């Protein structure tokens, strides 16, 4: 009991509990079939693997988004950046643009990542230098991004035919390759935020940018960096998506992913007004969203209903994070015991 109480202090505790509960409910409803993992052609197959595989894009986006939200910003352009990166990579592999690169997959991936980085840097520039509100600043790229992607592919759905490109969404050691990408990125990020002062700078910037500035933190460059990083993670997610459908579909690649990514971070308990953050909790949030989607599919309900479920979950989570709501509920349920709430925390 004492141990559980200690554990529940971690930000990632409740998201993980919710995730396990969702999986358990699924397992009970399906009579255990949900947890079945089969080995076919030396690859692991099963619902759980599906969740990890399909959730990898969202996990990547959530990692980048966690930092952006930790500085008190928002990036609603990630879906469009995914479309751009997919468009760049597929067009190069297809030989549609840059024939000089000789349909080289490495060059395509590098340039796509560079594209995502540029997009992120542009957002960061608008937010940190021109000082536009993050929602508005990233809205510009959100509106223009799909247009730019369409212009890169000339308005067509570019399909690629390259086994080495498909590998991005392939398998290693029986596990989906995107999962390794996520692990790599997350390990890198955790190392960077926990072993350097950067994590502290980030939280400080989110809590109070003015105070951080006076404390000698270069708030602008911190912001610029997180938006750029968010752009890169979006580009990687875009590569995985385009490798998954073996082509670039600028209209639908990453559509509404920005909302899911923000949602994942919010479920993970990172405050949307900046400050305290936790990448593992956001990953749990991303997996919660993905497992809701997968379980809705598994139950054979129309997939569109996922949206209603998500909406209800978002509101519940936001309400539980809101101090005002907690106060009101406490007053309602403890009536005359109000002096307890008056005690300093």
């Amino acid at each position, binding site marked *: 009991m004492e141990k559980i109480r200690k554990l529940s202090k971690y930000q990632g505790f409740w998201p993980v509990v919710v995730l396990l509960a969702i999986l358990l409910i699924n397992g009970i409803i399906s009579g255990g079939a949900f947890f079945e993992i089969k080995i076919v052609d030396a690859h692991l197959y099963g619902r759980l693997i599906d969740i990890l595989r399909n959730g990898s894009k969202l996990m990547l986006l959530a990692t980048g988004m966690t930092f952006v939200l930790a500085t008190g910003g928002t990036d609603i352009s990630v879906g469009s950046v995914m479309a751009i990166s997919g468009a760049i990579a597929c067009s190069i592999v297809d030989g549609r643009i840059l024939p000089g690169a000789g349909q080289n997959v490495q060059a395509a991936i590098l340039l796509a990542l560079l594209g995502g980085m540029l997009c992120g840097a542009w957002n960061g520039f608008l937010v940190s230098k021109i000082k536009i509100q993050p929602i*508005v600043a990233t809205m510009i790229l*959100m509106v223009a991004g799909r247009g730019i992607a369409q212009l890169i592919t000339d308005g067509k759905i570019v399909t690629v035919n390259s086994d080495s490109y498909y590998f991005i969404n392939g398998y290693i050691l029986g596990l989906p390759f995107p999962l390794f990408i996520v692990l790599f990125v997350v390990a890198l990020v955790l190392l960077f935020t926990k072993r350097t002062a950067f994590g502290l700078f980030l939280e400080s910037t989110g809590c109070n940018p003015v105070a951080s500035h006076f404390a000698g933190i270069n708030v602008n460059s911190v912001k610029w960096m997180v938006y750029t990083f968010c752009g890169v993670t979006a580009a990687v997610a875009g590569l995985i998506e385009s490798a998954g459908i073996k082509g670039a579909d600028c209209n639908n690649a990453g559509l509404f992913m920005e909302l899911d990514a923000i949602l994942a971070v919010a479920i993970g308990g990172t405050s949307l007004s900046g400050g305290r953050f936790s990448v593992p909790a956001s990953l749990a949030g991303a997996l919660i969203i993905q497992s809701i989607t997968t379980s809705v599919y598994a139950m054979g309900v129309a997939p569109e209903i996922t949206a209603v479920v998500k909406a209800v979950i978002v509101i519940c989570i936001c309400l539980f994070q809101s101090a005002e709501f907690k106060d009101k509920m406490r007053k309602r349920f403890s009536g005359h015991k109000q002096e307890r709430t008056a005690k300093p925390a």
Partner: protein
Amino acid sequence: MSESVKTTKKFRIRNMSLLVTALLFIGLFTAGSVAYDRFLSLSTFCNLLNDGSYMMIASIGITFVLLTGGIDISISSTIAFTCVFSAFLLRSGVPAGVVIPLVLLIGLLFGALMGFMIHSYQLQPFIVTLAGQFFMRGLCAVISTESIPITDDFYKKMALNKIVFAGAKIYYYVFIAAAVLIGAMFVLKFTRFGRTVYAVGGNELSASLMGLPVRRTKVAVYAISSFCAALAGVVFSFYTLAGYSLQNVGLEMDAISSAVIGGTLLTGGVGTVIGTTVGVMIQGVIQTIVTYQNLNTWWTKVFSAALLCLFIVIQRILAGRSEKIKDGKLEKAA
């Protein structure tokens, strides 16, 4: 003293953005007329009104929210829901006289609920309206994922009846948009509620210290925004005579950028609905020019985004300058 400086400055920013917006519209329209035969005609102009009427209603609604410094990204789903739900009801034989008030009421209540959550529990407008967006879009899909045609006589009448003069057609639903515009202008300019909207957007804390009903106003603006979205949905179902669950995906971003191009500051407190209307028409002109030029329709998005960017940067510079002037004055006074 400094208060009056601030007001004149804000007044000037507002008028200047409006002027720039109007000039931009005239400039784009002239450019189109010079470049293409048959562009310069009354019917081109009237088509902007016809095709943009639902967009105008929705954008005017969202302007109220933006004026208080909030944001509402649920309107496109509310429009789609209104279309699908009314098409569904009409198909089940409910008369149009019941359907239209009902969907408008749903819009109003839905917005009020979101406003209530945003204000009472201090939630972020972005997240609450995001949930609203998911919810409404999901409900559409629950009703039907197929497109439902509307065959009701009243809807058909509204879709086809028009006034023709000098070769130009104006459909009846344009008058709904005009009525909304005039109503919104009146409310914002001459009613206590309208002035409170600006006050809340200027500084919420000051407004509440002055004893203005901040809570009621904030709930009301979200209700107005969703009501306008529902009305836009009704007009859109006149326009298309069908309800489809994926209609107008991403429309809220177009509405917000129209408002910004029309001179609304997203930090709240500054903006006009007439500016927003011109903003909608500017996007319409861009679309017309792109069509005339036979370009990929995606250029419309790129051009709109470029304009949006330009306007936001201009606003930022103007706002920065007025802050500097204010600081300068204050220093002198001290």
